């Protein structure tokens, strides 16, 4: 029974991924689609950051992740390179958890 569940999940999740990539060209070239497509990155990134930093399942939690994000903001203001920002966020959270 677990294997059935795994296979149904695998097929379903794959078809969802494939369906998004398979939207036809004539839909993609419409002006409305292009305006929406330009807005998707900031919209999704904003939502992803919030959930990544504040959510623990269905709870909102303020923990070391938020301090890590704060460190990332400071590093970005200092124009640090991407990997330094990522490492700085990780290091800040790790050090806070050591305390």
């Amino acid at each position, binding site marked *: 029974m677990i294997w059935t569940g795994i296979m149904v999940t695998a097929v379903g999740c794959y078809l969802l*991924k494939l369906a998004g990539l398979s939207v036809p060209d004539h839909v993609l070239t419409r002006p409305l689609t292009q305006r929406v497509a330009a807005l998707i990155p900031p919209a999704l990134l904003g939502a992803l950051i919030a959930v990544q930093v504040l959510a623990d399942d269905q709870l909102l939690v303020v923990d070391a992740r938020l301090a890590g994000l704060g460190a990332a903001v400071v590093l970005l203001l200092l124009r640090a390179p991407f990997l330094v920002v*990522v490492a700085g*966020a990780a290091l800040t959270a*790790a050090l806070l958890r050591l305390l």
Partner: protein
Amino acid sequence: MPGRSVRADSLGVGVATGAYGVSFGALATTSGLDVWQACALSLLVFTGASQFAFVGVIAAGGAPLTGAATAMLLGSRNLFYGIGLAPVLRLRGWRRAVQAQVVIDESTAMALGQPDPADARLAFRLTGWSVFVLWNLMTLVGALAGTAIGDPRTFGLDAAVGGAFLALLWPRLTALPQRVVAVVGAAVATGLVPLTAAGLPIILGGTAAVLVGLFLRREERG
């Protein structure tokens, strides 16, 4: 951003995310799945939140098909990611069928963070497949070692991913509409976390923000 830093950045995110496979492998086997089942989920389902949800339902004594339904609900955000990625990736035939498997949070974020389409395609492939390889390896390690291996949170890897997404968003925040859209996306998603199943806040927050963005543009033209 030149190609070289896209490579390093994508692999960096790939390593930080892929390491999480250990938590999944360990959780899967302590929830009653065997090592093969844990590895099959990472190989075939390959979308973290859905895998954790499936295992969570099994651990709570739920039916496998209930687990599958929950996992697919969470996986529906990959459909929206695909729509955003399609005009940039322009994949056809078997290439599309293969690359579809790595349409996930991190590969989408890294690709959409690149202003240049060639960089976006490189970022998508490198991030997606480096996460895929490491996630599967680390699932096996976690499934075999169980909880003997430490929690990746000790190393702050959960905060690293948030920092990476912010670094991708940052260069896009030069104009007011983009700032408003990003803030609305974050605010709506945060507000929905306690109210909806995990995964939905991202889709709903993103959708609400896009709608606000379309309205803002209409106002500008007035």
